[in-house]
């Protein structure tokens, strides 16, 4: 029994040692900012971070290191709520930032007024990426539900981009069926019956479409569609711009609680402000975002961006994110009503 007690106390000592295991603190440069963003912004922020770091060094003499984390917008908001130490969030949806505001006030409720254009420095829209030559003849939203057309879009529950896809389709159907909600839902339900795979994020869907070669049409962020052309070759896909789509305004915000705790507010605010500068706007346009202030951007960069009718989230069809989010994507919302996983 003596030895039993010995080993038990040894075990207890070890467990205590394990629990008390201390973190090694990461070596920090002068200032380190963490930008928690969503999937398709990787390439843009890679360039933008370098530009901002150079600018900050020139202005203040300080070295700033910007770390980034990318993932599905909803998932990223969840991580910030759970304690991911973001200085700034640059997410796909206003409602994802609102979720952080509601779950513990890490961001002040007036965040939308802190930067111009409702804190959306760049916008985007949803377009169709189809296989080269558009063999299924997809031109508009109505073509997506034709027989034999397979549509690739991520899951609106986890992906910000997918919610824009969903709402863009909804807006088209609203016009098509004169606002008859039963008919709109019918169209959306049929649309999702044409979806063979629901990925969790926009990037996953792009990979499914471009790399695994599933589906006939990818509902994609405009920038993501152009990026696919650049990555996989223009001989593989065509971009189809439908006559009407939705204006997506991916917003940015400083995470007040975190920057105040870390003392990084000055750099974090300057970082977001720089998105509105000539260089920030031009970089955004180069990465196929629609700059909020196009007059700052050289004309040859701008002309690549096609014109189409864009419905905003504040249109009476939706009534703003505060209304649209629970109505369409909350538990029991329209998506839950129409979506039945295929057997």
């Amino acid at each position, binding site marked *: 029994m*003596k*030895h*039993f007690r*010995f*080993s*038990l106390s*040894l*075990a207890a000592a*070890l*467990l205590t040692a*394990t629990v008390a*295991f*201390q*973190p*090694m*603190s*990461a070596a920090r440069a002068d200032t380190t900012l*963490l930008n928690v963003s969503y*999937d398709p912004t*990787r*390439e843009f922020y890679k360039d933008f971070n370098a530009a901002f770091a150079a600018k900050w060094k020139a202005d203040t003499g300080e070295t700033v290191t910007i*770390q*980034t*984390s*990318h*993932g599905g917008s909803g998932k990223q908001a969840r*991580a910030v*709520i*759970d*304690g*991911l*130490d973001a200085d700034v969030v640059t997410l796909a949806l206003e409602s994802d930032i609102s979720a952080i505001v509601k*779950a*513990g006030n890490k961001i002040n409720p007036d965040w939308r007024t802190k930067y111009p254009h409702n804190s959306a420095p760049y916008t985007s829209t949803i377009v169709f990426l189809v296989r080269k030559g558009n063999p299924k003849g997809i031109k508009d939203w109505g073509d997506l539900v034709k027989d034999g057309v397979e549509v690739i879009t991520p899951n609106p529950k986890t992906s910000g981009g997918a919610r824009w896809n969903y709402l863009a389709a909804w807006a088209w159907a609203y016009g098509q069926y004169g606002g008859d909600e039963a008919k709109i839902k019918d169209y959306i339900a049929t649309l999702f019956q044409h979806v063979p795979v629901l990925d969790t994020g926009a*990037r*996953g869907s792009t*990979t499914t479409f471009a790399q695994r070669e599933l589906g006939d049409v990818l509902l994609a962020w405009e920038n993501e569609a152009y990026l696919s052309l650049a*990555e*996989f070759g223009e001989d593989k896909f065509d971009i189809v711009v439908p006559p009407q789509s939705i204006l997506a305004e991916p917003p940015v915000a400083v995470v007040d609680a975190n920057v105040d705790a870390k003392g990084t507010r000055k750099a974090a605010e300057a970082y977001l402000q720089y998105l509105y500068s000539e260089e920030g706007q031009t970089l955004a346009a180069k990465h196929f975002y629609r700059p909020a202030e196009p007059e700052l951007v050289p004309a040859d960069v701008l002309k690549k961006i096609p014109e189409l009718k864009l419905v905003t989230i504040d249109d009476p069809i939706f009534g703003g994110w505060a209304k649209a989010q629970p109505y369409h994507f909350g538990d029991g919302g329209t998506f839950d009503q129409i979506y039945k996983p295929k057997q």
Partner: protein
Amino acid sequence: MAHDLSQSEPIGNVWNPATTESRTARYVLIAITLVFLGLFLFMPLVSVFVEAFRKGPAEFFAALVEPDAKAAIRLTLLVAATAVPLNLIFGVVAAWTIAKFEFKGKAFLTTLIDLPFSVSPVISGLVYVLLFSSHSVLGPWLKSHGIEVLFAVPGIVLATMFVTFPFVARELIPLMQHQGTTDEEAALSLGANGWQTFWHVTLPNIKWGLLYGVLLCNARAMGEFGAVSVVSGHIRGLTNTMPLHVEILYNEYNFVAAFAVASLLALLALVTLVLKTLLELRYGAELRAAGGH
């Protein structure tokens, strides 16, 4: 006569007299096994390396010395170097407790050790999110003392430890149970104390099983994706382990770099396997004598 011949055929087979299958059946079985292994194990492994070298060795090595990749490799090694020794100690203690002593709740403890094997790694990660998130009791308290667990290295180490918990213990428990307590009792009756008994009697008996468990534990610790993904926060150059880095690179259409890092990871696993095979070849007799595998 023909009847007699077919009867005597297996008996006349000097290669494997224990089986009665015809030569054809044996070759078919061997062929099926080889084809299966080739298709499902060997081909994917080879394709990882082929893909990694698609644009030549320069690109391959560039992908490995890139700062984020180096950080991911460092982190993976650090996590394994922390989690494996801790689990080694825990595994020995747990196996010792379970194999050598009788006490109430032993069956329960044995089941508990198996828990990480039976739950999904995602759950293993979420457990730590619940424990250490800013809405938990522990999270804010630790943070106010300057300790970050979730979305930082300690969280990754904890999640890895949880997932690799059972490897050493599972390897040792049957071995120790099989060996019984007679050696230890002899040592004790000759006047050795508990520590001496462990060091000079128990440890030499279990060393090969222990090494085997550590190798498996290490392989999993370096390769774990699910649980680590949940607690990592995916900050580049800081909290991305090699498996997570592979996913990120792949999602950035950076296929060569993704497969380069993946092949390094596969290489680490292969080294583990080779070590294990060498051990078995070199010490096979001893392993069997010790009642190991």
